[in-house]
């Protein structure tokens, strides 16, 4: 396991998008991790006297209309995004991958049922369905996690099924069947390890989408609720002061854009590194 990681790193360091994306993602996760222990200022503290300050030594990125430290809010917002995206991805993988594997293993009506249900979920644009779900369940970060998680399920189901179908045709699966293994055992022991690289890449992409979706929901006021800061909500609040304090919108916007770009680049780089065929052709 450790050797595999070292191997991945060794190849990754030759890949530009892996390095850039990886460092941005790493920075993002470190900041998010940090937010649970320390922020420069407590994010709940309202200090009207210091409102809408420009960057200074005291407040590195300035303050918002309540006099809260922007840097602290960004850090806390990163932590919030990670949690939402992480759990939502967990829901997506936890339900989607077994569904996809089952569809590929059973074929026939089971496959049809799962994939048609997938198509049904896919038919709604993800953010719209997330809005619908939070509208039904009520706003809040838990509900936005569920909403984002639900639209992750068909994505993972589809990727898992497609990848699994191509593995099922391979001869070593026939060999595994000739050793007396059932479909379930083969799915877990042979299919899953062979499609894991594809799932990992999909995870990084869905992670970026999850962060984007969380920001979108919070922007609409359906996601994270005050006083917990979130990048989307910061954007929304900044709207009012767009004319005389544009920096308020720039910081969270930049944070979202950078993180999503970093994760996507990392996903791209990881795909190149994990796919031996692409690696060789370079």
């Amino acid at each position, binding site marked *: 396991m450790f050797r595999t990681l070292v191997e991945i790193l060794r190849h990754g360091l030759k890949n530009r998008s892996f390095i850039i994306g990886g460092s941005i993602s790493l920075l993002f996760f470190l900041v998010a991790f940090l937010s649970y222990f320390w922020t420069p200022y407590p994010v709940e503290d309202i200090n009207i006297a210091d409102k809408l300050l420009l960057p200074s030594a005291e407040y590195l990125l300035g303050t918002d209309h309540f006099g809260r430290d922007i840097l602290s809010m960004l850090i806390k917002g990163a932590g919030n995004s990670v949690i939402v995206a992480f759990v939502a991805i967990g829901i997506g993988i936890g339900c989607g991958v077994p569904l996809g594997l089952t569809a590929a293993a059973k*074929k026939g009506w089971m496959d049809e049922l799962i994939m048609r249900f997938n198509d049904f979920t896919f038919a709604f644009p993800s953010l719209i369905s997330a809005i619908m779900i939070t509208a039904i369940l009520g706003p809040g970060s838990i509900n936005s996690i569920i909403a984002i998680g639900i639209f992750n399920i068909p994505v993972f189901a589809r990727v898992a099924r497609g990848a699994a179908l191509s593995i099922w045709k*391979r*001869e*070593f699966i*026939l*060999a*595994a*069947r*000739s*050793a*007396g*293994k*059932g479909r379930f*055992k083969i799915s877990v*022991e*042979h299919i899953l*390890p*062979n499609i*894991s690289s594809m799932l990992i890449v999909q995870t990084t992409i869905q992670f970026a989408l999850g962060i984007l979706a969380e920001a979108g929901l919070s922007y609409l006021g359906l996601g994270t609720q005050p006083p917990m800061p979130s990048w989307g909500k910061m954007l929304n609040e900044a709207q009012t002061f767009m004319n005389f304090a544009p920096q308020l919108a720039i910081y969270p916007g930049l944070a979202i854009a950078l993180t999503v770009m970093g994760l996507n680049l990392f996903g791209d780089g990881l795909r190149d590194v994990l796919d031996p065929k692409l690696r060789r052709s370079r």
Partner: protein
Amino acid sequence: MALLQVQDLCVTLNTAHGPQEVISHINFSMEAGDKMGIVGESGCGKSITALALMSLLPRDSQTRGKIILEGRDILKLNSNKICSIRGNRIGMIFQEPMTALNPVKQIGAQVSESIYLHLKLTRKQTLERVSELMDKVGLPVSKFGLNLYPHQLSGGQRQRVMIAMAIACNPEILIADEPTTALDVTVQEQILDLIRDLADSSGMALIIISHDLGVIAQTAENVMVMYTGQSVEMGSTMDVFQNMSHPYTYGLFSAIPHVGSSVQLDRKRLNSIPGQVPELHLRPRGCNFADRCSRALKICKDKEPMATRVADHHQVWCYHPLTCEDKK
């Protein structure tokens, strides 16, 4: 009672031209320790026969007839029972060692899987069994380790791992589907020796499938020659090879190049069988070989031939079999 009896096995597969019978009326039986060869050209149904024995054919195929393993008809078992036979009672070695091993799993794990599954041993016992197997197939753990991945092994070594997997649970029957076709000649010899020795020492029945008559001659005691999904000649290897009666068998033999023979010295063309294998949906009414056969009679084109006994344990499906004089 025979260990394995195959009675009137017919397999129908779905093709572009609708369902087609690719195996028709195969019969044979084996005792423990028997070694049987199945020989024929590509597409004659050798591998399909093997897969039928393992019930590994695609789901939209139909299998008729009986495959009786120790008194039980495999074709009538449910999928759970079949899974407990596969790998446990019947082991199988595949043609391509490059693709028949899972590329992302260590070889030790791959060998131990079916032991866990069928023998229900403890972790330690399994590990002992695995290293015993690796010794048997010539990859001693002291030298090769169990944590290697398939890509770290050569073709021959991988085939040895495949063999270890196939015999992990001491099956009664070992099916080797072209076990040496993908290997080079020097390794081929070693792998054949290994398979034969393993079969001898454990009393396994061996079914070896090959298009290579040399492989069959070396390993099998009995041989079945197949053409277009039918058996055309069957008997002890000695009988069939020395006293071949079916024109197709004869054709196969004359197509083998001999080092130093007149064919090579004179740079003459190799002998070949004229014509082509008829496509599945264009099979003639009578003998499938009739159109390519120089000895075909009128009846050959009208009626399918029945089995004729040439000698004890030597049958041929032909109306006009070769005799000794014909071959001179």
